[in-house]
């Protein structure tokens, strides 16, 4: 072969080989990068799956119980629930945390802050012996019920109510009590006053579950369904 032709031909082949190598290297690099990214993504997905599974298992095992504390001992509390059934709650100095719920906020407190007759919510795991407490929240207990107004005292602003279970409850209508009346045509709730309430009306009420000095419950709010609604 002529030298003049051979040299450019040879350099052209070298150039193409170099270009080919460069292309292979680049494709390898991007391939390994994308593989790495793929693996990282898979690891992330796996981590998320494990975390959600753990959360789900915790959610399944965790239960909430509430009741009034009837006895407080170191490491053990006895509560009486809404059915008047007693339940044992086991606490741990290191694990159990205590909070006070007030005005829709929680504040951390200590075991020593718990008082007999306080109403508590216990979140934890139920065992054969009792509840193993993870968190204890001191909360306000509310009475939410309804019934028929059978007596109205205009002088002292109280109502006697007979519930569906034939329980008689006396309710004080305080200055702070929010009073609502159902408009029987529009079915909207409207602000009302004590004078508009009649014996025979249905009343739905919320009160703090503690009797006041008059031995009656102070109503936080009431909803009146006028008896006329039932005569329609």
């Amino acid at each position, binding site marked *: 072969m002529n030298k003049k032709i051979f040299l450019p031909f040879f350099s052209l082949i070298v150039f193409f080989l170099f270009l080919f190598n460069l292309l292979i290297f680049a494709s390898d690099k991007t391939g390994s990068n994308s593989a790495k990214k793929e693996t990282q993504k898979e690891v992330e997905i796996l981590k998320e799956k494990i975390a959600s599974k753990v*959360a789900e298992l*915790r*959610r399944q095992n*965790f*239960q*909430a*119980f*509430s009741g009034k504390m009837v006895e407080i001992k170191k490491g053990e509390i006895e509560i009486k629930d*809404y059915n008047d059934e007693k339940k044992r709650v086991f606490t741990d100095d290191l694990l159990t945390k205590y909070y006070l*719920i007030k005005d*829709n*906020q*929680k504040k951390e407190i200590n075991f020593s802050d718990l008082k007999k007759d306080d109403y508590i*919510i216990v*979140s934890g795991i139920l065992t054969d012996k009792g509840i193993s407490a*993870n*968190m204890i*929240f001191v*909360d*306000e*207990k*509310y009475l*939410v*019920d*309804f019934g028929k107004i059978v007596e109205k005292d205009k002088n002292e602003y109280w109502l006697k109510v007979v519930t*569906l279970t034939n329980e008689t409850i006396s309710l004080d209508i305080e200055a702070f009590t929010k009073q*609502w009346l*159902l408009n029987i045509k529009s*079915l909207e*709730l409207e602000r009302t006053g004590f004078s508009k309430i009649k014996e025979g009306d*249905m009343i*739905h009420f*919320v009160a703090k579950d503690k009797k006041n000095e008059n031995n009656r419950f102070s109503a*936080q*709010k009431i*909803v009146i*369904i006028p008896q006329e*609604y*039932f005569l329609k």
Partner: protein
Amino acid sequence: MKKETFLAIFLGVVFGFISALIILGSISQSQLGEKNKSLLPQKKEPSILPAKPTSLKLLNINNPKNFLIIENDKVTIEGEVEKNSLIVIQSPIKDLVFQNKEEKFKVDFPLALGENVIKIVSYPQNRNLKTQEKTLFIYYLPNEI
């Protein structure tokens, strides 16, 4: 009497007897069939029985389950009850009154931190039916589970 005459009479009697048996058999079968037919329920004939009376739909809450711990400050209450009942849902932070056009109802309901006692009461449109109620204890405890 000739032997052939006797045979003809004998065959005639036998044939007549067999024919009588066949006719009797077919008559009794058709009568039995008619009897059976009357015992079976007539699908195509219109029923003279009165329509089944509709029973009272009991108040049922499908969601949420009682004593549930929730991490959000609201919950969707789903249930079913007699159509056109007046439903009152009350908790210490919310009062809701509405009439359900369908048996099923679904409402969003806010929750306060801690225990939420939610009373659900239904007054059926038919005043002869009983007022029904359900109480839910729902715990809004964020980041605690």
